[in-house]
């Protein structure tokens, strides 16, 4: 581990040196040491503008400033990392400002002729800081990503304190918009990387192999050992993560690129761990690795994880790490608990962990801001912008905002106010749909509202007419049901027996955690009528199944009856998942459940066709949507042999039923059913989920099976409201884009405009150029176009 030692001596000095003129942090031993103004000149080695501190989530509070590396002259030069707000520099006058901008512009790495600057005093500036590099323990570096498009660096000091996180607004920064000619460095991808590259000139910066965003500054020997222990010999991850120079050279090894064997065999699933010849060796190497981590990192990890800020993420950490929180985890139990003994793709594991930590961090941040601003709604600030950024970059579409307001659902009073005394609605149906799209329904409104949203009941009728309709529907239902109920030759027919069996098996395992469907509490009681209820063709079989109850049996009856109503379809797996929530919302009303389910199936029966054509078509449309909205992700899927988007199959087949907790499913479905924007809004929800995980997918997942595993595991981790907000933004952006393309096409084809050109250019080349321009526009297929229609 070369390179670090030459700086060790400085580290010792600095603990007694104080050069901080404006450090907010009080930890530096001699921070109150008085130094005269003349002593406060520093050589400005590096400067970068438009580095912000974000004191709150509101962009209006963001503070722009300069990040700088300065040198304190002396026998042994000391290097400091500083952040100076623009407001402070402005006070100093234009000359001082000039120094910072010119150093930034020169992008020189020569230290000799550094400009001398003052580090302004910090009065009234709570965020400004300057700290000796040697007091910096570590940096947490997050490159710009889908969820936060400004890359950030947080600086942690050896004392345990954390400086305000710096956000690199590269889009505003001069040095970033024009790479200085003659610069010796290759252009960096973003400002933080640029800074990091420069820091490496003055300190040994080691990227941790335990946590990829963690960089240790002049690490101690113990830390080096800890953070270079290769947990997973998975250099590919490093390679993907650091296309440029983030990984210290000694850690970089070539990714094995010769997988010329069977093409099915290059998944990480079979190269996760290094492959010593025998298990015993593999195990030994692994255990050695773990024991090193335990010894070396336990104290550090404990310190970090026991910090109050870490609390929210602790429950989500992998068990091995989690066990450090209380320091009672022995390394042997790590191996057991961590599932290392089992086996899991390192990449899927990393991707999942990275996502969980990021999401929890984001939630914690929001909570914190929430408490700071006294509970003011910050949803508007947050919703959907992350998704938008990707589209903006790739498609140059203006910003759209989500209109959703899920915190104020349509409640009983609001619902009641939409109807006159005779029960006839006084608001138009589109208004009702829009409001339910925006707000969702309060729980006790659903039973009333769903038959309208689903179209079981017409909107513009009064209560009396509705009662008549219900009576008709009830009669009709009983009529269909009587085709099998009590008709033994039908009920016991071979094909119906098989159908009953299929339905029964599924209903016994659908939403059994819902109070209505919970298994009978006293299964041993032979007098329990439901134990002997004869829906399944052979009651003998129930021994291995969860016991039925009256509601699971009713669910079976509804589904069997549906098979008689929609004869071509029959029961298909997934239908019980669609029917059960309706049954719960309809409080077990069989007739209402049946007709709502039938109406839902009118929307969704294409999913259950024998030839699977409906599913294939929807996945193909989603594929086109990804291609248009996020070409990079599309290319990645292509590369991973994953264009079939099969990992979205379950999402589409049963409308995310398995991906959200039960109550969220209800909220999602009613939004989908409104057809407010699109009768296929579901595909935008799917796109939103993919988009909010695109970073993890792009970075870590390179095989179809990995993506499938990752997506299957998203179940119960997706946040509904933000996803819906993002889906709306995606829809609006998509619609805008289609409109722009159409307008552009019309302009190109318009005879008046092209006729005018004809006068100047000869006809042939004009036609060619029109064709050329038309070809450059993204192609919007009919299937894609259908997405922006509310009724299919």
């Amino acid at each position, binding site marked *: *581990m*070369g390179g670090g030692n030459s700086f060790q001596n400085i580290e010792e000095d600095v603990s007694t040196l104080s050069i901080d003129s404006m450090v907010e942090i009080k930890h530096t031993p001699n921070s109150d040491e008085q130094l005269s103004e003349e002593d406060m000149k520093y050589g400005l080695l590096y400067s970068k503008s438009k580095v912000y501190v974000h004191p709150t989530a509101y962009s209006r509070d963001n503070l722009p400033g300069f990040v700088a590396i300065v040198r304190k002259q002396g026998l042994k030069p000391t290097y400091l990392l500083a952040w100076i707000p623009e407001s402070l520099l402005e006070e100093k006058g234009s000359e001082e400002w000039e120094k910072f901008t010119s150093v930034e512009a020169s992008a020189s790495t020569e230290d000799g002729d550094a400009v001398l600057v003052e580090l302004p005093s910090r009065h009234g500036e709570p965020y400004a800081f300057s700290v000796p590099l040697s007091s910096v323990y570590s940096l947490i570096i997050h490159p710009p990503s889908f969820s936060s498009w400004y890359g950030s660096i947080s600086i942690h000091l050896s004392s345990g304190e954390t400086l305000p996180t710096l956000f690199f607004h590269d889009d505003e920064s001069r040095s970033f918009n024009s790479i200085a000619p003659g610069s010796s460095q290759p252009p960096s991808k973003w400002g933080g990387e640029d800074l990091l590259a420069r820091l490496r000139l003055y300190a040994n910066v080691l990227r941790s192999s335990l946590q990829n965003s963690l960089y240790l500054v002049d690490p101690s020997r113990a830390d080096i*050992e800890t953070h*270079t*222990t*290769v947990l997973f010999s998975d250099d590919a991850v490093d390679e993907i993560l650091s296309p440029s120079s983030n990984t210290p050279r*000694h*850690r970089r*090894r070539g*990714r094995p690129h*010769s997988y*010329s064997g*069977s093409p*099915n*065999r*290059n*998944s990480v*699933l*079979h*190269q996760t761990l*290094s*492959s010593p010849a*025998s298990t015993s060796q*593999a195990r030994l*190497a692994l255990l*050695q690795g773990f024991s090193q981590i335990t010894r070396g990192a336990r104290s550090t990890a404990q310190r970090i994880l026991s910090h109050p800020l870490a609390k929210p993420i602790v429950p989500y950490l992998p068990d091995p790490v989690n066990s450090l929180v209380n320091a009672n985890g022995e390394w042997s139990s790590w191996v057991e608990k961590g599932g290392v003994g*089992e*086996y*899991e*793709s390192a990449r899927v594991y990393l991707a999942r962990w990275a996502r969980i930590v990021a999401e929890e961090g984001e939630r914690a941040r929001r909570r914190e801001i929430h408490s700071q601003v006294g509970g003011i709604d910050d949803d508007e600030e947050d919703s959907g912008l992350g998704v938008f950024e990707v589209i903006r970059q790739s498609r140059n579409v203006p910003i759209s905002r989500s209109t959703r307001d899920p915190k104020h659902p349509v409640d009983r009073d609001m619902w009641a106010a939409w109807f006159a005394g005779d029960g006839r609605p006084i608001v138009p149906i589109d208004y009702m749909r829009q409001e339910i799209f925006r707000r969702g329904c309060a729980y006790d409104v659903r039973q009333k509202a769903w038959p309208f949203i689903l179209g079981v009941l017409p909107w513009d009728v009064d209560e009396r007419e509705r009662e008549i309709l219900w009576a008709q529907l009830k009669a009709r239902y009983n009529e269909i049901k009587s085709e099998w109920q009590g008709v033994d030759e039908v009920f016991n027919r071979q094909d119906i027996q098989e159908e009953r069996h299929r339905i029964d*098996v*599924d209903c016994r*395992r659908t939403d*059994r*955690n819902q109070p209505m469907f919970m298994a009978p509490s006293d299964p041993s009681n032979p007098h329990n009528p439901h134990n002997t209820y004869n829906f399944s063709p*052979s009651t*003998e*079989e129930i*021994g*291995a*199944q*969860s016991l039925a109850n009256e509601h699971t049996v009713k669910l079976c009856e509804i589904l069997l009856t549906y098979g008689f109503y929609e004869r071509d379809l029959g029961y*298909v*797996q*997934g239908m*019980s*998942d669609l029917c059960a929530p309706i049954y719960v919302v309809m409080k077990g009303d069989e007739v209402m459940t049946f007709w709502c389910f039938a109406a839902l199936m009118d929307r969704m029966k294409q999913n*259950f066709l024998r030839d*699977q054509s409906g*599913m294939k078509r929807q996945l193909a449309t989603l594929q086109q949507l990804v291609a248009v909205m996020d070409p990079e992700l599309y290319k990645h899927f292509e590369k991973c042999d994953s264009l*079939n988007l*099969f990992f979205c*199959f379950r999402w589409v*087949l*049963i409308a995310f039923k*398995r991906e959200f907790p039960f109550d969220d499913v209800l909220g999602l479905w009613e939004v989908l059913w409104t057809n407010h924007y699109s009768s296929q809004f579901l595909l935008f929800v799917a796109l939103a989920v993919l988009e909010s995980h695109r970073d993890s997918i792009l970075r870590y997942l390179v095989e*179809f099976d990995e993506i*499938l*595993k990752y997506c*299957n595991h998203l179940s119960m981790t997706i946040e509904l409201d933000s996803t819906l907000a993002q889906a709306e933004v995606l829809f609006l952006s998509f619609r805008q884009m289609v409109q722009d393309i159409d307008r552009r096409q019309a302009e190109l084809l318009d005879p008046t405009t092209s006729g005018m050109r004809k006068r100047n250019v000869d006809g042939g080349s004009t036609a060619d150029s029109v064709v050329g321009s038309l070809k450059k526009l993204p192609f919007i297929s009919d299937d894609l176009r259908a997405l922006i229609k509310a009724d299919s």
Partner: protein
Amino acid sequence: MGRVLLKVIILGDSGVGKTSLMNQYVNKRFSSQYKATIGADFLTKEVMVDDRLVTMQLWDTAGQERFQSLGVAFYRGADCCVLVYDVNSSKSFETLDSWRDEFLIQANPQNAENFPFVVLGNKIDVEEHKRQVTQKRAMAWCQAKGSIPYFETSAKEAINVEQAFQTIAKNALLQETDIDVSPDYPDPIRIDSPSPSGGCSSC
């Protein structure tokens, strides 16, 4: 020898216990709360087979035949196919034929006649009098289909599960080795990386 991934496909009627068997084998857990599998999922497990460390990737798919046209993507490259039925349901046993045929058509393995299948008769924990398929009947079928190994299992009570999957792994490995006979099949790990067993940080 490089690391080996064995791809195993588990097929059978809905509700015979495919998901349960897989979870019992990999996670040593049983739950009566498993839902019907929608789409597909897989679990992986490392096992020692004849002194070789192999990784089994066990694919679990939806049991309704309607979804089988989607199976193609998963069946491809399979090293072993596990056919599961419920000993308390003759229907689930009678469909084994079509599951086997369908698999051979969809996966189209190189050596269809010798492709390794294993049959599992599950749910033997259920009271004996409910049983609908005798061991004799099942074994006769397996014999007729080219001596397919047969196990009677209980995912719930963890009976025979380990043994069954050990055989599955073994037969899958044989299949895998049969395919990759090419002598210059490169070891994907060792080619570029120096001694992976070094243990300490590589400076």
